[in-house]
C-alpha cells in the first residue's frame, strides 16, 4: 500500500476517532448532567427524609412525654434510662436524680414471676400483660400491668427495653371485691336451707347443693334436666297462667306448691317461688326458683287437722261441760254437755255473761280466778249455780287460760262437772260425822261416869260384906262364910270389869302425849305391878328400843298382853319372852309364852271386846280389845300364832313416825 493511501486511511481513522471522542465526551457530558441531577435529587430527597425523620422523632418524643400512662425506657440491667412525667409521678422516682432498678420495686411475692417474665421478654422480644404488685417510693403498694418490648440497635442487637405501665390497683381491687362478693354470695346460696335453681327456658343452668341433696341427683346431672321433667304443679291451670304472665312481663314473680320427683322415685312437696331476672331490654333472661320442702309441714298440718277433728269430737261428745269465755266472762263457745248441764240452749248462752246467766253464787271467787287466768295459772274449784229451772247445782270447774296466736291471754276455758249429788253426799257425811262425834263424846263421858259411879257402891258392898264377915263369922255357918267370900270375889271382878271399860273408853282417845319411852323401864314397871305366878318368869332377851310414843298407852299395851300370858301357863316352868325386830317403817314386837295356847277359831275373836276364852274368872275380855285399839291408833297390826298346849305368840307392829 502506498503512503498516500495510508495517510488517507489514517486521516479517516483519525477523523473517526475524533468524532468518537466527541461522541464519548457528549455522552459523558450527558451522563455527568444526569449524575448531577440525580445527586441533586438525592440530596433533596435526603433532606426531605431527614426532616421527616426529625419530625417523626420529635413527634415520638412528644408522644412519649405526653403519653398519659407511665412510660419507661430501661437498659439491659433494667435500670431506667428515660421516663415520662407520668412515670415519675406514678413511681415517685426520677431517673435524672437517682438510679432506678425496676426489679427492686417489685413486691417480694412477685420476684420469681418477674424473673421468668424478663427471661421471656429477652427471648421473644415482647412481654404482654405482665401483672404484679410493686412498691412505689412512698411505700404504696400498687397493682400494675406492664407491656414491654426490647429495643434493638441497627445490628439487631438488644440494647434495652421500653414499657408502658398501667395502674390496675383499682381494677384489681374491684376484681378482688367482686370475687369476694361472689364467694360470699356462693356461701349464702350453698348454705341456704332452701333449694335454689337458675333456669333458662325451663332448663336448669345452675343449682345449689341443697337442691341436689333435696332431690338426690348428683350435681353434674341436674344441668341436663328440665324443671318440668322433675316437677309438676298441684294446680296446673293456675300455674300455667302465672307462668305465661311471668313470661309476658305482667308479673315479676309468683309462688306455687309443686310436687318434685326425687331420683329414687319418691316425691316431695315444695313451696316454689319463681322470679324472673330480666336483661337490659326487659326480656326475661333467667328464672330463679327458690324451693322449700314443705312435705313435713304438710303432713304435720294434716295431722293437726285430724287431731283437731278428734278433739272436737271428744269435746262435743264428752260428758263434761265445756265453756270458753273472754276475760269479761262473755261466753264464746259451749259444748252440748254444758247446755244440758245448765238447761240453756247454745243460743241462749253465747254472748251472755257467764256469772250472770248462771247466777253464780260465789262470784267474787270467779273474779279471783280470772285474775289467775291473766297470770296464766290453771286451777280447779267448785262453784254453786242455778240452772234454767232455778235448781241449785254444784259444779267442779277446771279452768285454764286461753291464749291467742300471739300467746296473749284472751280468756279462759273451763271444764265443768256436775257434782251436786256427790256434794250432797259429802254434806250428809259431814253431818253424820258431826253427829257421830257428839254421840261418841257422850258415850265416852257416859262410860266414864258410869264406871266411876258404879265403883263407889261396889266399894260400899265390899266394905259391908267385910263388916258382916267380921261381926258374924262366929254366928254364920260354913255356907254363910263361903257366900260372903264369893260375894267379895264377885265384887272384885266387877271392879276389874269397870276398870277395864274405863281404860277401853280412853284407849282410842285422840289425845296422845308423845315422848321418848324406854320400853325396858315399861316392862320392869309392869313386872312389879301385875300378879305373876311364882313358876312364871318374864324375860327380855334383847334390850328393847326407845320409842317416840305415849307412855301410858305403851304401858297398857304391853301389860294387857303380858298379863294375859302369865296367868295362862300350866307348865312347870312358865316363860314369857318380850322380843322385837326393826322394820324400815315399823317396830315389830312379839310376846311369846309356853302357856296353854289359844284354839285357832278364837284367833280373831279374842280382839273383840268382852270376848274371853273359857270361864276364867281372871279375864274380863276387855284387855285384848284395848290392845287392838292402841295398835290401830299406831297404824299397826296385831295377830296371834298359837298351838294348843305349846304356847302362844302375840305379834303387833307400831308405825315409827306417826304423823299425829
Amino acid at each position, binding site marked *: 500500500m502506498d503512503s498516500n493511501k495510508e495517510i488517507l486511511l489514517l486521516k479517516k481513522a483519525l477523523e473517526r476517532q475524533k468524532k468518537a471522542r466527541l461522541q464519548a465526551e457528549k455522552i*459523558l457530558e450527558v451522563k455527568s448532567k444526569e449524575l448531577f441531577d440525580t445527586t441533586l435529587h438525592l440530596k433533596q430527597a435526603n433532606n426531605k427524609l431527614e426532616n421527616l425523620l426529625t419530625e417523626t422523632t420529635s413527634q415520638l418524643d412528644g408522644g412519649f412525654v405526653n403519653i398519659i400512662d407511665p412510660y419507661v425506657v430501661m437498659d439491659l440491667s433494667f435500670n431506667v434510662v428515660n421516663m415520662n412525667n407520668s412515670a415519675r409521678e406514678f413511681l415517685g422516682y426520677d431517673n435524672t436524680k437517682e438510679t432506678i432498678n425496676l426489679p427492686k420495686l417489685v413486691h417480694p411475692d412477685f420476684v420469681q414471676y418477674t424473673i421468668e417474665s424478663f427471661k421471656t421478654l429477652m427471648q421473644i422480644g415482647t412481654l404482654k400483660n405482665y401483672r404484679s404488685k410493686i412498691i412505689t417510693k412512698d411505700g404504696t403498694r400498687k397493682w400494675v400491668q406492664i407491656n414491654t418490648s426490647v429495643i434493638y440497635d441497627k445490628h439487631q442487637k438488644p440494647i434495652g427495653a421500653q414499657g408502658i405501665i398501667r395502674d390496675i390497683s383499682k381494677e384489681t381491687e374491684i376484681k378482688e371485691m367482686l370475687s369476694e362478693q361472689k364467694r360470699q354470695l356462693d356461701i349464702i346460696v350453698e348454705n341456704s336451707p332452701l333449694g335454689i335453681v337458675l333456669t333458662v327456658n325451663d332448663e336448669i343452668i345452675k343449682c345449689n347443693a341443697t337442691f341436689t341433696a333435696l332431690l338426690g341427683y348428683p350435681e353434674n346431672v341436674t344441668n341436663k334436666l328440665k324443671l318440668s321433667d322433675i316437677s309438676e304443679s298441684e294446680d296446673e291451670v293456675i300455674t300455667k297462667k302465672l307462668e305465661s304472665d311471668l313470661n309476658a312481663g305482667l308479673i315479676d314473680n309468683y309462688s306455687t306448691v309443686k310436687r318434685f320427683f326425687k331420683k329414687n322415685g319418691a316425691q316431695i312437696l315444695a313451696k316454689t317461688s319463681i322470679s324472673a331476672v330480666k336483661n337490659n331490654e326487659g326480656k326475661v333472661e333467667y328464672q330463679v326458683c327458690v324451693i322449700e320442702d314443705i312435705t313435713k309441714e304438710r303432713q304435720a298440718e294434716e295431722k293437726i287437722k285430724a287431731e283437731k277433728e278428734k278433739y272436737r269430737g271428744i269435746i262435743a261428745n264428752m260428758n263434761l261441760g265445756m265453756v270458753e269465755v273472754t276475760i269479761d266472762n262473755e261466753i264464746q263457745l259451749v259444748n252440748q254437755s254444758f247446755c244440758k248441764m245448765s238447761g240453756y240452749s247454745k243460743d241462749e248462752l253465747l254472748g251472755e255473761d257467764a256469772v250472770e246467766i248462771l247466777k253464780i253464787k260465789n262470784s267474787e271467787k270467779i273474779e279471783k280466778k280470772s285474775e289467775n287466768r291473766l297470770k296464766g295459772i290453771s286451777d280447779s274449784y267448785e262453784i254453786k249455780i242455778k240452772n234454767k229451772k232455778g235448781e241449785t247445782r254444784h259444779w267442779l270447774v277446771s279452768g285454764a287460760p286461753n291464749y291467742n296466736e300471739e300467746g296473749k291471754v284472751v280468756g279462759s276455758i273451763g271444764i265443768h262437772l256436775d257434782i251436786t249429788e256427790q256434794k250432797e253426799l259429802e254434806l250428809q257425811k259431814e253431818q253424820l260425822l258431826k253427829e257421830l262425834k257428839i254421840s261418841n263424846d257422850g258415850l265416852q263421858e257416859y262410860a266414864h261416869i258410869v264406871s266411876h259411879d258404879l265403883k263407889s257402891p261396889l266399894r260400899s258392898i265390899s266394905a259391908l260384906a267385910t263388916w258382916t264377915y267380921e261381926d258374924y263369922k262366929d254366928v254364920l255357918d260354913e255356907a254363910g262364910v263361903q257366900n260372903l267370900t264369893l260375894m267379895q270375889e264377885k265384887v272384885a271382878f266387877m271392879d276389874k270389869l269397870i276398870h277395864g271399860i274405863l281404860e277401853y273408853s280412853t284407849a282410842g282417845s285422840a289425845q296422845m302425849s308423845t315422848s321418848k319411852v324406854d320400853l325396858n323401864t315399861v316392862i320392869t314397871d309392869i313386872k312389879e305391878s301385875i300378879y305373876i305366878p311364882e313358876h312364871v318368869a318374864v324375860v327380855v332377851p334383847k334390850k328393847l328400843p326407845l320409842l317416840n310414843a305415849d307412855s301410858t298407852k305403851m304401858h297398857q299395851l304391853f301389860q294387857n298382853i303380858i298379863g294375859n300370858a302369865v296367868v295362862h301357863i300350866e307348865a312347870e316352868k312358865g316363860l314369857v319372852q318380850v322380843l322385837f325386830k326393826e322394820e324400815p317403817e315399823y317396830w315389830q314386837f312379839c310376846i311369846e309364852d309356853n302357856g296353854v295356847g289359844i284354839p285357832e277359831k278364837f284367833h280373831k275373836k279374842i280382839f273383840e271386846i268382852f270376848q274371853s276364852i273359857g270361864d276364867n274368872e281372871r279375864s274380863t275380855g276387855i284387855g285384848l280389845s284395848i290392845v287392838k285399839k292402841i295398835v290401830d291408833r299406831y297404824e299397826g297390826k296385831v295377830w296371834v300364832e298359837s298351838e294348843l298346849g305349846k304356847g302362844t305368840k302375840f305379834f303387833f307392829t307400831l308405825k315409827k313416825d306417826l304423823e299425829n
Partner: protein
Amino acid sequence: MKGVVFTEFLEMVESKFGLETVDTIIENSNLPSEGIYTSVGTYNFNEMVSLITSLSSEVKTPVGDLIYAFGLFLFDGLAKAHPDVIKSYSSPLSLIYSIEDHIHVHVKKLYPDAELPTFKILEKTDTSISMVYSSSRGLYQLAHGLIEKSFEHFNSSATVTYKLLNENGTEVKFDITQNG
C-alpha cells in the same frame, strides 16, 4: 449493543487484517453511525451484523469463525479493561460459573441499558460445567471464544462442546470439561 463490542471488533479487524480492511468494511456496510464508535455509547446490533457480514466477504472467512475469533480477542480486551474482575477468580470454571451472578451484575451497574445473554447452569462439578446459553442475538460462537480464552488466561485448557437447541442458535447447550 454496547459500544465496547464495536470498538473491540474494529480493533481486532485492524490488528488482524489491517487498517484498510477496517475502512473497507465500514465503507461497505453503510452504517448510520458512519463507523464512529465509543465504548461508552450504545449502537444498533444490525451495524455489527453488517460489519461482520462485510468482513466475511472481504476476507473470505465464514461468519461463525470470525465471531469465534472475535470471542478470543474480546476476552483479552475485557480483561485489560477490568483486571480486578478477573483477579477475583482463581479458576476459569468459577469465572464461567459466576458470569450470570457476578459479572453481569457489575455490567448492569455501569450500563443499566445493556442487553445481556443469560447462562443457565445445568450441572457443575469441580472439573466441569454444563450450561445453556440464551440470547436473541444468537452469538454463541462469541461465547465459545470467550470460554476458550478464559481457560487460556488461567494457563489451562478445556474441551468445549456445544449443541444448538434451536435453528437460530439463540439457545445453545455448552458442555465444558477442564483438561488435566
